């Protein structure tokens, strides 16, 4: 095969969904192994490593994000049914959820108010630009809801989605450590906290390393936080006079 035809083959393949799909799976596989080599350090969370590997791959090959996403959207799409599936662990632990319903609601409200007001307060104090500020406000909510909220209050939806992901990784890195410092052992409390502060990342992290009970409560927190924040956040933004 001559060099010219190899070149053409690449032009054909790089626009093909197959390349992005395969690259995503391989990057995730490698990231899981890298994470294990580094002693499961939360700073080398498989999702972060996989994202970094893929960005490096795309920059090196010159494939742009839109082209990549055309293939990777098949994986992205599964987030929908996976969110629906969170009802299964919730159902399994329904007794515990029912018993803790009021504490869960109160904790959720305090968590949301802390998240939104400390975010807006700090970012204002440190002088963030207004579009960044408003995209930052819904950062602890799962990305589809955060994008909707950001749009509603005048932020940039796709930037909001990026900040949500950063929050998720920060939460996964800090969360287990803070929970250990506060001597919290109850898996339902740990899960709920991770789901509230770090949405889907926290939920996935709980399923992977704290068990199904923590995962179920994280999923519950993620859904509840998303719904409540959509109603509360516009009010807090008004209080801050933005």
């Amino acid at each position, binding site marked *: 095969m001559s060099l010219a035809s190899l070149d053409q083959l690449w032009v054909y393949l790089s626009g093909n969904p197959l390349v992005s799909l395969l690259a995503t799976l391989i990057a995730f596989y490698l990231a899981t192994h890298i994470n294990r080599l580094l002693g499961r350090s939360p700073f080398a969370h498989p999702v972060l490593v996989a994202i970094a590997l893929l960005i490096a791959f795309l920059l090196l090959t010159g494939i742009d994000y839109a082209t990549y996403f055309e293939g990777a959207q098949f994986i992205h799409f599964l987030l929908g049914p996976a969110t629906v599936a969170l009802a299964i662990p919730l159902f399994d632990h329904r007794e515990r959820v029912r018993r803790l319903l009021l504490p869960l609601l109160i904790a959720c409200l*305090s968590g949301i108010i802390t998240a939104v007001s400390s975010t807006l307060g700090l970012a204002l104090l440190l002088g963030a630009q207004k579009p960044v500020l408003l995209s930052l406000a819904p950062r602890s909510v799962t990305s589809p809801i955060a994008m909707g909220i950001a749009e509603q209050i005048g932020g940039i939806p796709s930037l909001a989605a990026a900040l949500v992901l950063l929050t998720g990784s920060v939460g996964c890195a800090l969360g287990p450590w803070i929970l250990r410092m506060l001597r919290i052992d109850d898996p339902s409390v740990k899960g709920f906290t991770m789901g*509230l*502060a770090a949405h889907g990342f926290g939920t996935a992290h709980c399923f992977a390393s704290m068990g199904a009970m923590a995962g179920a409560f994280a999923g519950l927190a993620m859904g509840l936080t998303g719904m409540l924040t959509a109603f509360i956040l516009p009010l807090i933004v008004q209080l801050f006079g933005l």
Partner: protein
Amino acid sequence: MPLIMGMSVLLGCQFIGELLVRALSIPVPGPVMGMVVLLIGLMIRGRVPSALRLAGEGLLRYLTLLFVPAGVGIMVHFGLIGADIWVLLVTLVVSTALTIAVTAKVLDGLARRRTGEEEA
């Protein structure tokens, strides 16, 4: 066929969720409403059919992988993020830490009191 049955139930609930959200203009994404629909369905049925459990738990096991495609999208915003990088880092770290501490303390305190009451 269990995997197909399970996937159909999940996608069906998501579909109903999307319909409800659009019809009632609720500010919540379709899949979250789909989760509520499935939960109500399971409450009525009283148990999780094994086909549904197979598909659902399979998806949840690889939940982290499903976030990767959206996460790569951060490369589009390197410019805006770079301009405010220190503000963002400090805000994200401090505020996330505060949120985790407050939520965990409040829930742990309340939950402990509640279980204490029941035992007493």
